[in-house]
């Protein structure tokens, strides 16, 4: 992973804006930002002091070539996908997607923060839903609680016990899913073959972009 990072840093030298435009999904939109700050003022996590750098600041940092600061930042990972910034941007920048794109790129080249909880959730969710084609909610919750080890997992599970019990009582949490008795697609084989091909083609697209 860090090889890829070095390769990219060498390829783009000091032109981080070009790197984001070419490598990050929706990165070509960054230059459209006119620094009005409406995205930052619209972000729900901003009110809870979630961001180190609000979106418009990240956009300017990209232009200023602050590669490490942007890629290692926690900020993009705070996006809740609420699309407030997206619908309000006067320049029609799809800010939500750009945030996702920068985060994904940082993760792909091994520069994103380690143990970032939403990054962990992203991986856990995707692995969970693609395993059988449908989400196993119990296993998803388990792997999220136990990400930092058994001790902290039990503590979190205990804290959330009343929430879980309420859901079990309301028949909205089926504990049998813990042993794999969950909803599944019939053609799991077909889904896995399709995703293997999609991953192969995605890797090819990315390799082509890195080469050019």
């Amino acid at each position: 992973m860090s090889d890829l990072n070095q390769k990219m840093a060498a390829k783009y030298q000091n032109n981080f804006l070009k790197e984001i435009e070419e490598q990050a999904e929706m990165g070509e939109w960054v230059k459209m930002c006119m620094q009005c700050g409406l995205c930052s003022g619209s972000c729900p996590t901003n009110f809870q002091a979630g961001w180190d750098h609000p979106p418009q600041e990240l956009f300017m940092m990209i232009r200023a070539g602050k590669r490490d600061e942007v890629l290692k930042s926690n900020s993009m990972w705070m996006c809740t996908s609420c699309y407030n910034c997206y619908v309000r941007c006067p320049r029609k920048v799809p800010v939500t997607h750009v945030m996702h794109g920068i985060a994904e790129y940082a993760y792909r080249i091994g520069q994103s923060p380690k143990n970032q909880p939403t990054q962990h959730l992203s991986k856990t969710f995707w692995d969970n839903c693609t395993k059988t084609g449908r989400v196993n909610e119990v296993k998803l919750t388990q792997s999220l609680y136990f990400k930092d080890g058994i001790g902290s997992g039990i503590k979190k599970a205990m804290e959330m016990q009343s929430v879980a019990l309420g859901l079990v009582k309301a028949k909205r949490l089926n504990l049998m899913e813990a042993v794999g008795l969950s909803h599944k697609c019939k053609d799991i084989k077909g889904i896995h073959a399709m995703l293997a091909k999609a991953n192969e083609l995605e890797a090819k697209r990315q390799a082509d972009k890195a080469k050019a």
Partner: protein
Amino acid sequence: MARKEYAFYPGCSSQKGASASNYLTSVESMCKTLDIKMTEIPDWNCCGASVSYAESGELPRIAMNARNFALAESNLPGQDIVATCAACWLGSRESKERLEHNSGLMADTQLALKEAGLQIKVIPEIKHMVEVLIEDFGYDELKKPVKKPLNGMKFAGYVGCQTNRPFGIVGESFENPMYLDKLIETVGGEAVPYDQKATCCGGALAFSEPEKAQAQIKDIIEAAYDGGAEMIVTPCPLCQANVEVYQGSINKKYGTKFDIPVLYYSQLMTLAYGGSAKEAALDGNVVRARKLEEFAGK
């Protein structure tokens, strides 16, 4: 023959025993009254939701959605896809939009689909259940079957994010969408004014950043109480769960005394159409809606 037929995409949370199973039950009851035939897309799969963006990459995520399109198109030709979940609807619509505007992405997606023995010819229209109600039926039609109006009950219509942005419901504003209030009034309830109608509940970050998400949820519930609401109503499974199930944790942390039921529009409609508590799946609410349980028993 039913009045309307659709290819139904319930999504992972709206399955038996899953976190929005009460949504599924009440939608089925509501559709029965309105004579809507919903045929599940055979072997549909997860949309990937928004939060998988970092792990999935663009093409695999779109391939998952494309598989649903291909299955719907080949098994239920000519029918629009209807999602009840905001994230399913958004994931599908975003995928449709990107596929229709990017021939390279479409070609790669077709190659991936071929591995599962599928292909896309035409991507069906994708609607949220709310769009079906408002655009294909309309408030007047929805009012006709009302047998028991929810007179005197005060609801905070909580629209949230993804049923509102970025696509939204035609003719509605992103800042102050009125459709949920109108639905509440259609079944005889009172929609209270409050200022957090389209605020984010934290979405998937309720899992990964619980403190930040719960702070947002607290603001939403507080505003609903301040507006005089007795209950909250929403069209989104994640909004419903987040705003309902963390009330205990929020009370512990902030010393609040939240105890407000959070319902789906389809539960209200089922009750107003004369359905039982069971048909409206009121037993699926963690914070029990006692007032509605009594109402249903009368």
